[in-house]
């Protein structure tokens, strides 16, 4: 399967050219960003109470 490219955080990543470790790191970064932004959003909606 040709993996193609993915755009994330203003960067283009060539998935076919990445090593397993590089991919794992990218995955962890995306997960962390996601979790953090959900935490912040939850704080925003709690701002009422």
């Amino acid at each position: 399967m040709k993996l193609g490219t993915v755009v994330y955080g203003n960067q283009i990543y060539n998935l076919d050219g990445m090593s397993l470790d590089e991919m794992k790191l990218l995955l962890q970064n995306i997960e962390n960003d996601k979790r953090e932004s959900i935490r912040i959003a939850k704080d925003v909606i709690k701002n009422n109470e």
Partner: protein
Amino acid sequence: MKLTNQQKCENLLKFYDDSENNIKADALVNRAYIDKVSKQTINEKVNAQMNSIKTEIYNINPKFKEGSKNYEATKKLVSETLSNYEQALLDLSSFYDGKIEQLILRKVELESSLIGSILNEEYLNENIEKRNNQKENDSVKKSVKDNIKAVIEKIKNRRTANAEVDPKMITNLLDQQEVAIELDEQFSNNIDKIIKDKNDNKDSMEKFEQEISLINSEIDKINERKKNSIYDAMEIGGKELTPNVKKIKIFGRITRFFVSRFNTAKVVQSTIIDPLNERIEIFKVNELSSMKG
């Protein structure tokens, strides 16, 4: 620092846009990652098998030269068998990767539901705020309350003046009061409904988060199981193969004079290639077909 509703909504819109990109990017990278894990694991295994074949060939005939005419036929056989071997492993990894792919897609669905429910929470909060304001400031209610006040004043005045109070006035007062109560109830019912929606939304959010966490750990587990499965597939360990290995060793002990008289290619075929092909076939028939269901 208390944010205005406008500021909150601005933040949430940015969060909505960023989240859509993050969720989708995560899914693509995850899918690419599991594919690479498969390819890497399969490459390791195929290389190991190739080295094992080479070792076995040299065990049969230490003098065997790779460049020789005879090797061409053997090279072709080895190449075909390894292709076959690799394909069986690719089919095996596809089975697992298919399962993981479904989990990744389910995770995308849950994450987008979670993002949606966060926005929904804010929407419902603002709705409740709006309705409470309406309840306080509704003009119809206000005029009914003013009417009630006016009628009570009239009744008071007539009583002060010791004049008769017209029963119609009392009826009017009671009617107005009923209207006020009904209006209040309507507003309260509407607000109650929104509060219920808010609680349902909160419950949903928790469920989404729980399921996402379960999926994350399930994906890791299946990926590990896949790697182990690939490493274990078609390994020598079965009883039918040990005699072949022993046979080669016996050949090795016979003097080189006798060994060099055998057609190496034929021996390689019967003692290495054919048993490996058999292992591949048994694997396809037994394990692979049960996976495809």
